[in-house]
């Protein structure tokens, strides 16, 4: 449960979590490189060797993200933001789409409400009592 909350919280501070992760991986690579340098390796070579020992940096970041948060929600949120930006970029299209949807829904509701009142709802009297004028 505690972990679940932490993962939800990480959805909303993605930038912070990403920075922390990058910082930690950088420091890890630096520590390995330092060990190589101590054996007399030139710094540039040591940095490359550190990456080799560490394994795939990008894969490890992906694993990190997977563990840290719910990646599928994170991506869904990204999609929503992307859609919203695109809608704002084409306000004419957005307006037409919104009006068309609103009209469509409105007309449907109205027609169904009338049909419901006229044909579907039984009159509030038992069926056997004849209604006389």
């Amino acid at each position: 449960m505690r972990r679940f909350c932490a993962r939800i919280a990480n959805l909303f501070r993605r930038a912070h979590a990403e920075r922390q992760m990058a910082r930690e991986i950088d420091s890890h690579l630096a520590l390995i490189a330092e060990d190589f340098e101590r054996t007399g390796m030139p710094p540039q070579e040591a940095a490359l060797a550190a990456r080799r020992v560490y394994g795939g940096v990008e894969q490890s970041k992906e694993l990190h993200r997977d563990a840290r948060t719910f990646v599928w929600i994170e991506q869904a949120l990204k999609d929503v933001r992307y859609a919203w930006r695109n809608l704002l970029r084409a306000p004419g299209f957005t307006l037409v789409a919104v009006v068309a949807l609103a009209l469509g829904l409105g007309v449907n509701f109205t027609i169904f409400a009338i049909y419901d009142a006229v044909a579907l709802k039984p009159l509030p009297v038992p069926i056997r009592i004849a209604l006389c004028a």
Partner: protein
Amino acid sequence: MPSEESAKMAVLPGTLDLIILRTLKTMGRQHAYAIAARVEQISKDLLQLNQGTLYPALVRLEQQGRIAGAWRRTESNREAKFYAITKAGEKALVEETRRWRQMSGLLDKLLSEGA
């Protein structure tokens, strides 16, 4: 010194958390690289961790409250995130150790039967 050979034996799934907890319990506060180095040393390089794969386990354990991480300086004055085992972590370690012993004992018995 880190070795550059390819993995000789992969970590058994589900055992990495236990390995990390035990290492932190024995060695006290450590950063990820020291944990990896220690595990490789103990296994006499038979077991080689892909060091990047430590991180998901560290994140998971930290979120579960079994370890706590904090930024500090190493002896060589570099910054690194050091992890320490918590009370909850120690409890989990006892429990997981018991489960592991039970499981490996059972497998041992099964495998040596009629051998």
